[in-house]
């Protein structure tokens, strides 16, 4: 039972990540490989605030969002002026730089040694300690993030994002400041995935830079693409599938020595297959086919 709850908790965390990446990659059409970095910023900000300053988790959350959004805007503002495939390279570059900072800035992040002993969240005297507690906590945040993104994507703001994805030159001719929308969507996505990072940090109570690498960014992209780009529910489907299937494989008798590799082959392979045969994903709107 604990094991199942653990999987459900991971699913919730990745639902948040997937939906937020979907906003910028699926709705706005900007493929970003920086997302693991923002997830990591959320994790480190939450961890450092609670370890060094004893800040309560729920107070730290807005701080994580703000920090991630600020860095997201700082990166996005110059990067989003770069054309399509070079933009992805730029996000790739920023992701690696973020990782290098996490790994090398020993004074701040403790580098490769990581940050152990992150306390469990407390609220008015109640400590979230059991798996069941965390499942409720992560589910609540997943719902909140869903509502936020639902409001955004169903509004005229969301329609402008979709139009940017379809043809951003045409969008400009209709009087919309396309760059501003791009930066906003990038920055909001960063902020929301920081929430997931903070949850991750407090759940696992230990973080190190190896969780926030390029392959992790590719995994997040797989969730969006496999589940469906351009529809929030697609990311829910994607998170459920890509988190649970590797675990199911373990039950079918996969030796644990190659379990980690098989998990990666699974999402890497699915990414290839979906790009080859169904770029829209299982339940998506956008097939990455620009005219």
């Amino acid at each position, binding site marked *: 039972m604990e094991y199942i709850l653990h999987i459900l908790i991971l699913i919730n965390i990745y639902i948040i990540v997937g939906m937020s990446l979907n906003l910028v990659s699926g709705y706005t059409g900007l*493929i970003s*490989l920086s997302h693991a970095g923002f997830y990591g910023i959320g994790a480190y900000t939450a961890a450092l605030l609670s370890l060094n300053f004893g800040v309560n988790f729920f107070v730290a959350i807005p701080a994580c969002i703000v920090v991630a959004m600020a860095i997201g805007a700082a990166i996005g503002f*110059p*990067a989003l*002026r*770069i*054309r*399509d*495939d*070079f933009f*992805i*390279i*730029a996000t*790739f*570059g*920023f992701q*690696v*730089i973020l990782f*290098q*900072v996490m*790994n*090398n800035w020993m004074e701040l992040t403790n580098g490769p040694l990581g940050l152990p002993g992150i306390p469990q969240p407390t609220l008015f005297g109640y400590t979230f300690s059991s798996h069941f507690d965390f499942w409720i906590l992560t589910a609540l945040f997943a719902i909140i993030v869903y509502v936020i993104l639902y409001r955004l994507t169903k509004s005229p703001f969301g329609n402008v994002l979709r139009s940017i994805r379809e043809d951003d*030159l045409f969008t400009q001719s209709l009087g919309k400041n396309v760059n501003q929308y791009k930066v906003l969507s990038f920055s909001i996505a960063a902020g929301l995935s920081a929430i997931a990072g903070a949850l991750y940090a407090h759940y696992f109570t230990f973080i190190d830079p190896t969780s926030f690498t*390029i*392959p992790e960014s*590719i995994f997040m*992209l*797989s969730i969006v*693409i496999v589940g469906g780009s351009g529809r929030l529910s697609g990311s829910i489907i994607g998170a459920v599938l890509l988190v649970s299937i590797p675990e199911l494989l373990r039950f079918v008798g996969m030796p644990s020595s*190659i379990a980690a*590799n*098989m998990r*990666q*082959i699974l*999402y*890497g*392979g*699915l*990414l*290839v297959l979906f*790009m*080859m045969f169904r*770029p829209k994903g299982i339940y998506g709107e956008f097939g*990455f*086919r*620009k005219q």
Partner: protein
Amino acid sequence: MQFLLNGIIAGSIYSLIALGFSVIYQTTRFFHFAHGAVYTFGCYFAYLFSVQLGLDRNIAFPLACIATMATGSLCELVVYNPMRKRNATDLTLLIASLGLYIVLQNIISMIWGDDTKTMRTGEVVEGHPLFGARVTDIQIIIFITSIILMVLLAFMMMKTKFGKSLRALSNDAGLARLSGINSDRYILYAFMIGSFLAAVASIMISFDTDMTPTMGFNALVMGVIAVIVGGINSLPGAALGGLFIGLAQNLGVYWLPSKWQDTIAFGILILFLLFKPYGILGKKPQKQLL
């Protein structure tokens, strides 16, 4: 001085990797990220043939190169070509190649394990003195092999009919096809050439440092940076970019601790993407935006 030397040696490896990457990019116009995994296969195949199967190195290494070329070709034949036939965009090909990289790198992990392997002969050599610095045999071999390969590549591209066709394809695919060039076949050749260069670079590197399944990631990254800095549309640019990055990293160690080496490289990448996206030697493509 030692830094300069290290920079040149590193630069020559980066140039090889970048050239392999660039040859493929020129003909297909998308970033074949899986090249990093193909690169890794290079030295692992060499390890397989020479260490695990005990074949003589003069047989093992060429075999490894051929096997690597086959791997690179498989990427094209199994994934990219069918996608292009279905009108995939550069973006979808790029995303597919990300997934392909993950798959291939993990296949290497599964077959050979995640632990470090080595093909080095073991002793730590001091190296010969040169202009006040030290250079090892391996470093000399790396440098000379790289130069030879680059010259051969240049010769092939500029003087042979094959090379000219390849260049025609990269300049204007539509026109090349009209003049009878079978673009599919030449793209495959490009993959083979690129993978060959990667294999050579990879085998040479494995004599200098240890092998791990993720070593290709770094190589790939440096290759991408070199290609962009040197000029995305230019083969000589890739070589130049490789040298530039090698020098910048190793000279930068003068001021910053070496752990920030990669950050230097990425910082340069970002600067170029922002201000000079077509690199030092690159030219903007002629066609208009609208």
